[in-house]
């Protein structure tokens, strides 16, 4: 059992306050959806938890099983069991996917995977996400389409098996087929019940495939409403307008 506990998190970017006190707890076996309009601070939450250098923490704590992640470096957070699936995975020239994945798995597990087992896991993972085998030899994210990048993020999720996964707009830019494949990957990851998922999205579409246990509405840097899956249905029909007006 793992718990991610975000306590009164305040974050600024270049002296501009973006997050104004976020409180949220995600436990193993739970899926939380964070929904909100553009610019509400959803992605800031994801990147601040992961430790992107652009974001300055001005207050609060983020505890993973009692350890304050904010005290750790980016890679230490990942090794502690945090995973961030990025909205815009960067292209890294000259670093092959297989080399990258092996380095990542080795770092997170603390030991190099057995080559044969790793090759098998990689192939199975790629097959399940309908990723062509040739991708292993390609440069990381280089020339990947939007959908290929997202599938590759989920492949990493499945290989690294984090305690808590933060998925930042993984659904954006995906066509229906790719959305289905990616959602199935997330669901396989959730199956064990040993992991928690924080799913950040602008649209309710993905929630038809990945059913959330809790839905949080984000506006103006904080959570303004919380509820169960039914809250997503309400957002689907009414949109974010009431929240953006309320916070203005």
């Amino acid at each position: 059992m793992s718990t991610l506990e975000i306590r009164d998190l305040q974050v600024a970017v270049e002296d501009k306050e973006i997050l104004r006190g976020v409180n949220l707890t995600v436990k193993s076996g739970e899926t939380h959806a964070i929904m909100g309009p553009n610019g509400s601070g959803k992605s800031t939450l994801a990147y601040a938890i992961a430790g992107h250098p652009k974001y300055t923490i001005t207050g609060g704590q983020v505890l993973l099983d009692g350890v304050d992640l904010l005290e750790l470096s980016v890679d230490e957070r990942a090794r502690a069991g945090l995973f961030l699936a990025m909205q815009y995975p960067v292209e890294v020239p000259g670093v092959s996917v297989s080399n990258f994945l092996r380095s990542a798995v080795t770092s997170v597990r603390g030991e190099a995977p057995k080559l044969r087992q790793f090759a098998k896991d990689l192939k199975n993972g790629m097959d399940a996400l309908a990723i062509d085998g040739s991708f292993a030899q390609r440069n990381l994210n280089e020339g990947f389409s939007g959908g290929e990048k997202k599938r590759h993020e989920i492949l990493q999720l499945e290989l690294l098996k984090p305690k808590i996964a933060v998925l930042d707009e993984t659904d954006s830019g995906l066509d229906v087929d790719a959305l289905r494949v990616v959602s199935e990957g997330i669901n396989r990851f959730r199956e064990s019940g040993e992991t928690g998922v924080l799913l950040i999205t602008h649209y309710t579409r993905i929630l038809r495939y990945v059913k959330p246990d809790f839905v949080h509405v984000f506006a103006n840097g904080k959570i303004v409403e919380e509820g169960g899956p039914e809250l997503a249905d309400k957002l689907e029909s009414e949109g974010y307008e009431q929240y953006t007006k309320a916070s203005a």
Partner: protein
Amino acid sequence: MGLNEKPLSTLHEKASYDLADFEVPAGREEAWRFTPLSRLKGLHDGKAVAEGHVKVDVDAAPEVTVETVGRDDPRLGKVYVPADRVSAQAFNAFEKATVLTVAREAVTSKPTVVTLTGAGDGAAYGHLLVQVEPMAEAVIVLDHQGSAVYADNVEFAVGDGATLRVVSLQDWQDDAVHVSHHHARLGRDATFRSFVVTLGGDLVRLSPSVSYDGPGGDADLTGVYFVDAGQHLEHRLLVDHSQPNCKSNVDYRGALQGEDAHAVWIGDVIIRVAAEGTDTYELNRNLILTDGARADSVPNLEILTGEVAGAGHASTSGRLDDEHLFYLQARGIPYDEARRLVIRGFLGQLVEKIQIQEIRDRVMAALEAELAR
């Protein structure tokens, strides 16, 4: 910027075997302004007396004829006429030249490795001529090692339809000074592939140049360098397109780390009036890994004809991309390893182009050693 004040093509028009035709550089000249003359140990002003030794060993493919000849050999200096003071100094001071010849239509069965080992006992001058006759194919490796104060000229005569691949490794000890001109003259439909790796030495100034003797020539010049604290590694490229329908591609990349690590890259491409249908691109990228390192990168493209197939250049110098590091670290990869992965990727993309596996492995190992510093 001096280069913009006068037409580029005049920069390289001076060529002579006579040392007296070149004034001793004072440091302000366009061709010398980046080079710390005080560290040339007299190669530029005649004070470097040829009392040292650079041993030349040739491990040749059976198809290659190897000769050691005197200064009076009429074949020398036909491909390249010295275009600066140090080059002229070297041409006037070398005692023995090495001549490698690949006969017409011969295809060499293995790389020919020329190992130049500096004895560390003073200045030395050298000359190498590689003749690849029409339709022949050869691979030559120049491996510079040891400690030296060395200036030389290297001539590559690539015959019609011939292919020459050259790897030049500057793997000198830390105190070496090396000023070198590599000139390739390409016959009709000739192919030239040059791969330069510069890692060692206190000061290395290497000037690879290409000219074309007929249409259809294709030159590809690749370079990788890793500059450590205090090193000055300078590469001055010149591709002179004077014939129609020739190609050239230049891609040099380097990483710099440490106080006063200095890289200089000059990339001159001239497309003369007759050179219609030229296709050329030149690129230089520098990765600056620490404070105190400096990269000067100056691409120049002078087009004198309206009919080119393609002509472009690009130069970028920057630090490691935070987003790259963040992405790798967010997958648990520690900072140092993430940094190595990115740098290795940046340079390794070029190293992969070396077709000889032993050399490729050696270059990668040398880069790994640099990264581990």
